[in-house]
């Protein structure tokens, strides 16, 4: 891997958490010391995907020594409801169950093993009803979780008539299990006055707080949620952390004891939702110059049994349905279909990848039919400055063509393609494939009201600084970035700054750590707080040194400086403290400019877009269907990266996760809604052999968006979509072996599918 040596090197590359991680001192939820008297919760969940609860027998479980209580929906003090966007998800099943893994009862016991045994002793008799696992079947029965969505620009009907080439087809992408290595969990501690403190492994502390308050029937100020850090989230702990927090909260509320629940991996896989599988149809029209004139698509999202975040995920599918291309006439429809699977949820990319896969499929299909390389069509249609997206936003600081051109130049695309072609001429049973994947990803929550954040800053009288924001550290390095922001504002060393836990009593009404926007939103709120204190120090310096209003003052290098006047940071802090100046500040930020009208599906929903281009090459063993990735070479628009190590890590990790989704991660439910890939032995995520042998990442020099923190563009989700290139590189290798391969456009491209494709 290389980075661009011409870029300035004044920005730091560090991870504040690394020393803790390498020494084993990091405290995840399950590492907290347990209070005496802690009870352990476990859910008894449905083993049938859809049915009527005829009978429940807890006699044997209750008789087990160590079992303290078994809780049903009748015991819930407030509302039995944990749905976020739409209130359609009970915490505990009442009359019916809707998916395998749906909690029915909560066992509280003195230790985890007893809780586990008790759950096994509970008899639940369920009369099975019709089980739906396919989104198309659900759609045909009008089982929709929310209103269909529709995006339109231009007039596709007219445009198709004028197109020289029109192709229609189907595309499917599979689900994806998050496999955050730290399983879900929560720990509730009663305060004695009826209020609770909850430690939760969540990306959404406020979502947990709001949900718990509702389930307990108390106000939000009675519930304090604290998150130290989480061991991976990827979207899986955004809305889906609320159930476990609610379970321990109910247990604690009813028993007045601390209650803890850490899910076993098997439970986590069975009970939690995943990336949405999609089935789709498309129609693409091109003119004689291969310019895409019209695109239509219908997206059928497998939403699972409750709404969760599905409508928002569905909307982002439509935002990104034309990926990095300008298409003047677009008409897309999307349906969130109710099935008897666990409620599917946020996963890095949030529906965007599913949309992009369909567009890339349509282009690949057209290219095959026209006998040209897909890259020809891709390159001709890349977005340009001033192009209008189908949702009305105008592309600004558009780097789609620049990242493509730079990738082609820097990595010598022509030579790479020739090497692939030469190899394929020389080898009969081993073929290489090359694919390019351009990406364009919008940054902001598409629900405009969520684009705001707050921060709390304390400067202590000894000069040390404590900062709190709404950002949750989950491995993405936001802690390091927040510390950098505060240190830069105060002109002090990062060692002077401590980042506190994410806590709802210190920073309230947080948006979840999601949408790649966390560093931007919280970082800018933090800047606001630091600026307020900075101004007070400047005013103090003016008075102390009798300076004019317009005198230049600076906080830099652990000092405050104005011309020849200089005081150390500690001195100005100490002086301010003596003068009774407020050393604390609360900052707020809400993203300007953005707006979106959900009725017309038009507006300016994104603060900015992130662009990039990846070239992927692979080798396919045409006897066995095995494949490996030779290289992925990327040119990425980081803006002006504020932390190289963290940002590069996001690209590499996102890429690996995207490749996993597109190739080897196969989520299998049978017709009864039973998860057949229910442990990490049969649900395989990329291991050290599965990732590309070579990953090269090049910075495109851009000035960066003003709405990005320190002009360092958001980096969490976009790189996942480079993984789509892996799918098409394999597809192209298969075509090199069997040009007439009858391979449907269905991801993931498992070894089995490759083998079928090679010989069909």
């Amino acid at each position, binding site marked *: 891997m290389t980075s661009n040596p011409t870029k300035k090197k004044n920005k730091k590359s560090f*991870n504040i958490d690394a020393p803790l991680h390498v020494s084993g001192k990091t405290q995840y939820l399950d590492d907290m010391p347990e209070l005496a008297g802690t009870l352990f919760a476990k859910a008894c969940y449905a083993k049938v995907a859809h049915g009527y609860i005829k009978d429940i027998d807890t006699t044997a479980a209750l008789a087990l020594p160590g079992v303290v209580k078994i809780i049903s929906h009748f015991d819930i003090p407030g509302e039995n409801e944990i749905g976020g966007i739409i209130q359609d998800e009970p915490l505990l099943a009442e009359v019916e169950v809707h998916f395998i893994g749906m909690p029915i009862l909560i066992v509280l016991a003195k230790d985890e093993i007893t809780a586990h045994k008790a759950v096994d002793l509970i008899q639940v008799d369920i009369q099975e009803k019709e089980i739906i696992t396919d989104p198309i079947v659900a759609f045909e029965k009008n089982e929709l979780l929310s209103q269909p969505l529709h995006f339109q620009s231009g007039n596709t009907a007219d445009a198709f008539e004028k197109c020289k080439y029109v192709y229609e087809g189907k595309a499917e992408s599979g689900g994806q299990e998050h496999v955050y290595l730290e399983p879900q969990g929560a720990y509730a501690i009663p305060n004695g006055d009826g209020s609770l403190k909850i430690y939760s492994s969540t990306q959404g502390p406020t979502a947990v707080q709001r949900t718990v308050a509702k389930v307990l029937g108390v106000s939000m100020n009675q519930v304090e949620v604290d998150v130290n850090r989480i061991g991976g989230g990827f979207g899986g702990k955004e809305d889906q952390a609320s159930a476990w927090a609610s379970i321990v909260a109910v247990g604690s509320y009813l028993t007045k004891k601390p209650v803890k629940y850490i899910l076993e991996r098997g439970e986590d896989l069975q009970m939690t939702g995943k990336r949405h599988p999609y089935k789709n149809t498309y129609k693409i029209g091109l003119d004689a110059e291969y310019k895409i004139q019209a695109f239509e698509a219908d997206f059928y999202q497998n939403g699972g049994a409750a709404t969760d975040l599905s409508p928002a995920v569905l909307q982002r599918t439509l935002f990104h349905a034309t990926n990095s291309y300008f298409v003047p006439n677009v008409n897309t429809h999307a349906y969130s279909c109710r099935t008897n699977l666990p409620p599917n949820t946020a996963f890095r990319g949030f529906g965007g990848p599913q949309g992009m896969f369909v567009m890339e499929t349509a282009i690949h299909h057209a290219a095959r039919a026209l006998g040209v390389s897909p890259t020809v069509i891709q390159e001709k249609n890349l977005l340009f400055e001033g192009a209008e997206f189908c949702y009305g936003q105008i592309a600004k600081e558009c780097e789609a063509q620049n990242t493509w051109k730079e990738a082609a130049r820097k990595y010598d695309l022509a030579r790479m393609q020739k090497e692939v072609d030469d190899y394929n001429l020389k080898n009969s049973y081993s073929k290489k494939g090359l694919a390019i994947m351009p990406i364009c990803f919008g940054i902001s929550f598409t629900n405009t009201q969520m684009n705001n954040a707050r921060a709390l800053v304390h400067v202590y009288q000894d000069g040390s600084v404590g900062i709190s924001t709404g950002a949750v550290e989950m491995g993405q390095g936001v802690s390091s970035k927040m510390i950098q922001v505060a240190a830069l504002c105060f002109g002090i060393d990062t060692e002077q700054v401590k980042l506190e836990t994410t806590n709802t009593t210190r920073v309230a009404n947080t948006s979840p750590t999601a949408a790649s926007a966390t560093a931007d939103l919280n970082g800018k709120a933090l800047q606001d707080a630091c600026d307020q204190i900075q101004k007070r120090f400047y005013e103090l310096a003016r008075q102390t040194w009798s300076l004019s209003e317009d005198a230049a003052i600076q906080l830099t290098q652990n000092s405050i400086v104005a011309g020849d006047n200089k005081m150390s940071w500690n001195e100005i802090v100490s002086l301010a403290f003596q003068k009774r100046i407020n050393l604390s500040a609360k900052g707020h930020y809400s993203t300007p400019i953005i707006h979106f009208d959900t009725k017309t599906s038009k507006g300016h929903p994104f603060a900015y877009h992130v662009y990039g281009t990846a070239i992927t090459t692979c080798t396919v063993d045409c006897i066995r269907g095995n494949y490996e990735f030779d290289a992925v070479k990327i040119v990425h628009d980081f803006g002006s990266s504020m932390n190289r190590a963290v940002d590069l890590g996001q690209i590499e990790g996102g890429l690996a996760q995207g490749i996993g989704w597109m190739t080897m991660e196969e989520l299998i439910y049978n017709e009864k809604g039973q998860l057949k890939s229910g442990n990490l032995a049969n649900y395989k995520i990329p291991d050290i052999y599965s990732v590309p042998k070579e990953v090269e990442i090049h910075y495109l020099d851009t000035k960066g968006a003003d709405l990005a923190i320190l002009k360092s563009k958001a980096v969490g989700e976009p790189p996942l979509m480079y993984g789509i290139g892996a799918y098409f590189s394999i597809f192209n290798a298969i075509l090199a072996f069997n040009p007439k391969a009858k391979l449907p456009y269905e991801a993931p491209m498992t070894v089995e599918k490759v083998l079928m494709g090679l010989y069909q």
Partner: protein
Amino acid sequence: MSNEITVKVNGKSVTEHVEGRDLLAHFLRDKLHLTGTHIGCDTSSCGACTILVDGQSVKSCTMLAVQADGCEVTTIEGLAGNGSLHPLQEGFNEMHGLQCGFCTPGMIMTATDLLKSNPNPTETEIREALEGNICRCTGYHNIVKSIQHAAEKMNA
């Protein structure tokens, strides 16, 4: 059934009563509060709980606590000597071989075993050694570099 076992953990001898069913991973975490050994999968698939038993890397969820009776166990907490980080810990720190950190102790312990038996591993040998450890965050490249960094340091 309760059994008394004596294990030398990170250089210190401990004697404890354990249940026959107790896994070594749970013994370390729950009895000794050595929480740097993480449990990620319950099926011996992820490697987050890797430790050294008599110098060999072992997924501590694949071993019963009673099987460790009389053994020498090293966990991530016992790797640093006299306040200074082990070269592998330095390597993962310097080369950014981590993100969320949950898999990191297991990665480092597996690599410790590798570098002891093979101080100059090739990239292929490093990948072979780590095939039982999964990381969901990094894409592994920096993990390989971290181990190469440590090997260079240890051989210097």
